[in-house]
């Protein structure tokens, strides 16, 4: 491969990294919102995400034969996943975190790990009773075709994208659209509504927010509901993109998404999105480092294959945290004894 073919190739890699990044971003939002109000790493979020993916799988499976419009199926899947994951997250908060509100910080963190392990087995058992382990999405027709399949039906924008090396499938376009809608909605909710102001107040100082007449526990539940719903959406999007999920597949994206949240500055909503996109692109770039190495004449890069992708995410995290310990967009706060 020479430099002439490299440019569109790289563009393609970066664009598909951005698509992946949107999935990470939405998962990361679930982590960061919970962290914002409770300063708790919700390790169970990756299972909330898988629950969403499982619900999405079930919806597509049940609706598989119906002549319903594919977009409608996707909408139903998204709504169902949002509902189930959101409620699950609220339930987790109520049972496992709320009784520990004033305990040392290690305590709810360990509970979160425990809840995560329990949910993994529960999901495996529930799906296992129907003889399933790997859940392969049954996507509506046309979702996996190229966004710009037939030349004649191609919109100018699609043609343009095609010439610069961007080839997206329809489902990836939908993934980005859904993500953007969710991000916009969340941004509006948090920054421009009364409810959002209450969430921010609780995140700032729970006790004082309570004094101002805000039902802090209610707001925390609501935050978990929103975070869980985002997890559900991201689960369906993940299933859409990768096609297969199982009870344990929440771990990898969960870790990367949490890394993204930390990278962007945990607790910061734009930070989570930025972190997700950055990590998505970096992961994809690491996946093709060996190809780049061939082009640049650095034969030693050839040993770096896609299995190093996760390492890349962590090394970037280490580097950024050394220089900016609060993350890319995080605020630093002074501590006192």
């Amino acid at each position, binding site marked *: 491969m020479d430099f002439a073919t490299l440019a569109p190739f790289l563009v393609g890699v970066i664009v598909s990294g951005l698509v992946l990044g949107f999935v990470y971003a939405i998962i990361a939002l679930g982590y960061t919102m919970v962290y914002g109000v409770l300063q708790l790493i919700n390790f169970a979020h990756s299972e909330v995400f898988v629950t969403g993916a499982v619900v999405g799988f079930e919806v597509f499976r049940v609706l598989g034969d119906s002549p319903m419009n594919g977009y409608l199926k996707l909408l139903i899947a998204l709504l169902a996943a949002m509902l189930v994951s959101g409620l699950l997250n609220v339930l987790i908060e109520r049972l496992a975190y709320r009784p520990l509100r004033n305990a040392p910080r290690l305590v709810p*963190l360990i509970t979160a*790990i425990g809840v995560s*392990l329990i949910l993994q087995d529960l999901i495996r058992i529930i799906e296992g*009773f129907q003889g399933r382990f790997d859940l392969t999405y049954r996507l509506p027709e046309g979702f996996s075709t190229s966004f710009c399949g037939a030349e004649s039906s191609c919109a100018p924008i699609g043609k343009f994208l095609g010439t610069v090396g961007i080839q997206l499938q329809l489902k990836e376009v939908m993934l980005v659209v859904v993500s953007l809608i969710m991000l916009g909605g969340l941004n509006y909710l948090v920054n421009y509504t009364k409810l959002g102001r209450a969430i921010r107040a609780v995140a700032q100082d729970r006790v004082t927010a309570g004094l101002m007449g805000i039902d802090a526990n209610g707001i925390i539940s609501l935050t978990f509901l929103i975070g869980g719903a985002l997890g559900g959406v991201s689960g369906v999007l993940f299933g859409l993109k990768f096609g297969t999920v199982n009870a344990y597949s929440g771990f990898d994206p969960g870790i990367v998404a949490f890394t993204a949240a*930390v990278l962007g500055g945990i607790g910061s909503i734009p930070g989570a999105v930025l972190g997700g996109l950055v990590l998505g692109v970096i992961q994809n770039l690491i996946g093709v480092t060996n190809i780049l190495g061939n082009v640049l004449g650095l034969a030693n890069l050839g040993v770096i*294959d896609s299995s*190093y992708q996760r390492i890349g995410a962590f090394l970037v995290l*280490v580097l950024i945290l050394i220089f900016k310990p609060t993350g890319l967009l995080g605020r630093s706060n002074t*501590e006192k004894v």
Partner: protein
Amino acid sequence: MTAVRPGSQPPTRAPDRSLSLIVLAIISSALLLISQERSWLAALPSFIGNILKNPLVASLVLTLFLANLLFAYRWNAQLWAKLLVGGLSLFLILPWAGRDNTSVFDLAIQIGIFAALSLGLNIVVGLAGLLDLGYIAFFAVGAYTWGIFGSGQIGKVMTYFKENGSNGPLTLIIGLALLIATALSLRAINRVKGKRTPAANWGFLLAALGLVIGVILTVRGAVILASAGTALGSGVNPNFFWLFLILAVAAAASVGVLIGLPVLKLKGDYLAIITLGLGEVIRVLANNLSIYSNGSQGITPIGSASVPWLDSLAGGLGFSPDQYNLFFLYFLVLVIIAVIILVNMRLDRSRIGRAWIAIREDEIAAQAMGIPLVQTKLIAFATGASFAGIMGVIFAAKQTFISPESFILTQSISVLSMVVLGGLGSIPGVILGAAVVTILNISLLPSLGEATANLNLPQQVNPAQLQRLVFGGILVAMMLFRPEGLLPSVRQRRMMHEDDDVAGNLTPQDSIAGELNPENAAEVYSPGIATRADNERGGGTQ
């Protein structure tokens, strides 16, 4: 395990239970020996024999027997009775049972390994309050240190370098020069007190990177030089095992320092996620550097030292030659555990131990009192890592097979759950935690699975497959109902329960009123995992 309630200490001295301790020890030892010895089992009436042969019963008998050690430690009994029960159980009955059934040995060694790991993690998490989610990486470092050299893998590495390596002396010299230069500059940068400038940060990073490259080049140069001269077909001489026990400690401790240097400035959750990441990095490296680690296929067979007099002793006692290794490792583990416990007890009361606790409770206050933060944390990291390193060698020698699969994140979490279950910061507690989790994991749950095999349960709810559910349940239940663990240290118990008697009655149960409590309102959010307020769990619970 059996019901031990350290939380409720009776006001008067408990009655002397020497007699019941000895009786229980005799009964459980007899049951254990009978259930393992086939000829004795055959002599019994068949229905009793069948009961004892049931895997679940056998596993419970073994658990009861091990519980004796706990009773010997906890119960109020004469010292001679305690020593007698403890000594005979460890040195006579257990090896005896292990002769007839190696799985007993296996379990005992595994408990020892995990007890040492828990003690190491206890220093990092329990004493210094640094949440390390990648602890198993140090275990991996130890295991691979011996695994590579104790097996044919080193021969493969040398053949590879003989064919591909070039210019060993130059590589070695460059590596050493880089090593010395970067180490000196690291030291110089660290000596600059006051506010760290970006330039110093960059310099530090660059020097650290250089240090890592220096280490790699030095090792590479040494290997090239060595491979030119020698050929090691099946690993180094087994007697080097002793040397590698020490080398593994050094290797794990230096990896601990290397990992710790850049990240220990971070606090709490950031530290947790970074250690998790670096733990994964080590595992992925083990998976990918297949020249050294043979990739995901793992290294096998890994040798182990042989001690002639111990072997002949084992032979005299009727052990078969293939059990000599386990016999030797069992006693080695006992010795190492004893040393580690001693080290832990000394550390707990030492100046550095108090410094760790001070950091855990309040970093800024500790720093203000003159505790060098990074240095103290690094010592905690390195100490914890070294315990894991030495046990890694034992693990490699016991399994004779290691692969990256043994060092996944779930293992880190399960060691963490041992520490938490037993009681953060409490030495007997974490040992008990390690024993309970290990017994559950390798003995009780699988045997429960076997025992229920003919109930036609669906494969999904087979108890042997429910480890995650059981661990998760343990973690959650412990945190909700007994966050100080099974055998908490006195300090921890007081911290968690100091206001139970007073504040528990006075504080309103209503959540809003609880948060209006002026003491809660004054709480300071410290980003560490240290406690946020002194009166925890008093008012805010609903």
